[in-house]
């Protein structure tokens, strides 16, 4: 006889969100697995200065394109820099970049999308401006920003985040349009809930599903966009390795020294895999219709 069928739930106070969240994570192997993987990747990137045995910018031109060896665990790149150190440092930069870009674009995009979708008057002007912003290519922004602020992470983040904002705003707005007339929204408005809270409590949650997908995508896209900018010649300066630039620098050597592309590539894939799995598991958790399923 399963013991979980308690006669009634504790009434004192609902368990804190944090506790609920934590227990949810522990119960779901996918969630736990992806979280652990994510944490490990973040940890080794944050610990890059401790873990790397070489300076990621130190060149030894004579020792270029070397395969894995006791000195260079993952081999060297085309300038004879230690690939392991570069991947570690690159991971750090790319993770920061991805996190910042997705954070900024999701927050801004969400706010704009909610406002445009909910307030009829704002919709047209705001979305037209978004259409416009969408049209400005990231590349041009990157060029302009790099020249204004230098090729650093803040510039990159802004240059990559700006074109993502209207995309997220559109997505959110679309969902808002389809739920804003839902009776439960009406009911909440009818019980005097201030508009901001209505947006936050009743409208925003419906956007979470597509948003999680889009955000994990932005995460990956940020890293790759940076790589593409590198490919087109607008990446970070050479002393700052990022996964993207390592990959794009390694591309010409793909046949001769595939590890240069593969190592950061695998790191990137694992990172994105972890973020995605976590995102998926999270959305399953957040949706009550699925969350109760496996509990007995």
């Amino acid at each position, binding site marked *: 006889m399963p013991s979980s069928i308690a006669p009634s739930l504790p009434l004192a106070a609902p368990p804190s969100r944090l506790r609920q969240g934590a227990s949810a994570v522990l119960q779901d192997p996918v969630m736990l697995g992806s979280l652990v993987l994510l944490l490990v990747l973040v940890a080794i990137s944050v610990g890059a200065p401790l873990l790397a045995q070489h300076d990621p910018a130190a060149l030894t031109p004579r020792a270029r394109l070397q395969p894995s060896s006791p000195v260079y665990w993952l081999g060297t790149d085309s300038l004879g820099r230690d690939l392991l150190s570069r991947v570690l440092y690159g991971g750090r930069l790319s993770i920061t970049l991805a996190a910042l870009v997705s954070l900024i674009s999701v927050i801004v995009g969400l706010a704009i999308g909610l406002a445009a979708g909910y307030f*009829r008057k704002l*919709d*047209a002007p705001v*979305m*037209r*401006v978004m*259409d*416009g912003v*969408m*049209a*400005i*290519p*990231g*590349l*041009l*922004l990157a*060029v*302009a920003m790099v*020249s*204004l602020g230098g090729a650093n992470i803040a510039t990159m983040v802004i240059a990559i985040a700006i074109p993502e904002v209207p*995309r997220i705003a*559109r*997505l959110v707005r*679309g*969902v808002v*349009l*389809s739920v804003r*007339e839902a009776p439960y929204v009406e009911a909440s408005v009818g019980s005097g809930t201030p508009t901001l809270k209505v947006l936050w409590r009743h409208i925003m949650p419906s956007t979470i*599903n*597509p948003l999680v*997908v*889009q955000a994990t*995508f932005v995460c*990956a*896209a940020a890293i*790759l966009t940076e*790589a*593409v900018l590198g*490919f*087109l*010649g607008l990446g970070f300066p050479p002393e700052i390795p990022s996964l*993207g630039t390592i*990959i*794009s620098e390694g*591309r010409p050597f*793909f*046949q001769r020294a595939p590890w240069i*592309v593969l190592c950061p*590539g695998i790191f*990137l*894939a694992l990172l*994105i*895999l972890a973020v*995605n*799995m976590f995102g*998926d598991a999270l*959305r399953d958790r957040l*949706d009550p*219709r*699925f969350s109760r399923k496996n509990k007995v």
Partner: protein
Amino acid sequence: MLELVLKRLLAAIPVMLIVATVVFLLLRLAPGDPARVMAGDMASEETIAAIRAEMGLDQSIATQYLRWMGALAQGDLGHSIQSKLPVTELIKTRLGPTFALAAWAIGLTIALAIPLGVLAAWRHRSLADRGIMAVAVLGFSVPVFVVGYVLILVFSVKLNWLPVQGYAPLADGLAAHAAHMLLPTLTLSMVFVALITRITRASLLDVLGEDFVRTARAKGVTERYVLFRHALRNAAIPIVTIVGVALTALISGVVVTETIFNIAGVGRLIVDAVLARDYPVVQGTILFFSFIYVLVNLLIDMSYVLLDPRIRY
């Protein structure tokens, strides 16, 4: 509906004006000088100054802006600084390849991603679901330029089945066109297939728990119809939005694919123009893009109304 379309098209004008201004300013903010790029790295300062004067770049930014706007008002996008050709001409010749590529990619994406996403949602948490999601994740963690490179290596260089590069318009025959488009399309759509598969799955999962799905099943509607007719349409808003957004991202994001496969499209045009600071070309192309985006987004918004009768504007 007609009213909506007209209003939107009118609203596009200020959008494009703003875009034009922002782009104009961004370009002038970005250092770099078309005169220098053209004249090369050994030209003397006097030469550069003469060229700048010749191009009217020595005038104040305000004057240049007003002049450009004035020309724009007459429907003139100006002439390329580098090649002296009219910008409209340049865009026109470059548009075909980009549109072909985008159309193929979107077609492939929809044909692949939606069924996959539906399958994954339907078989939620099954092996198929997990498999599809894993592949989707891989799909957007591999950089386009690596994918393109590997595809060329395998299918063109090693197997010699397909051309490495270039573009053949449809006029050259479907076979040639398809042969040139296949690899770029695969390369370009991978990311979007991944994205749209995932968004389809996510929003379908939202809907599959609804009561009307149960009603449809109670009517004895086959699963395929339950999924595609009832559930998918209710899940369509985010999907359509993302498809639309992907389309816009795609048009501007084809640069890498165009570079790798040497397709002379608008993506490449704009990158080259940015790198060469060919102001009129950059400005003109972006204006053109913003018009396209306004159109695409108009289509998306119209499709909202068609998809969901509850939506009002």
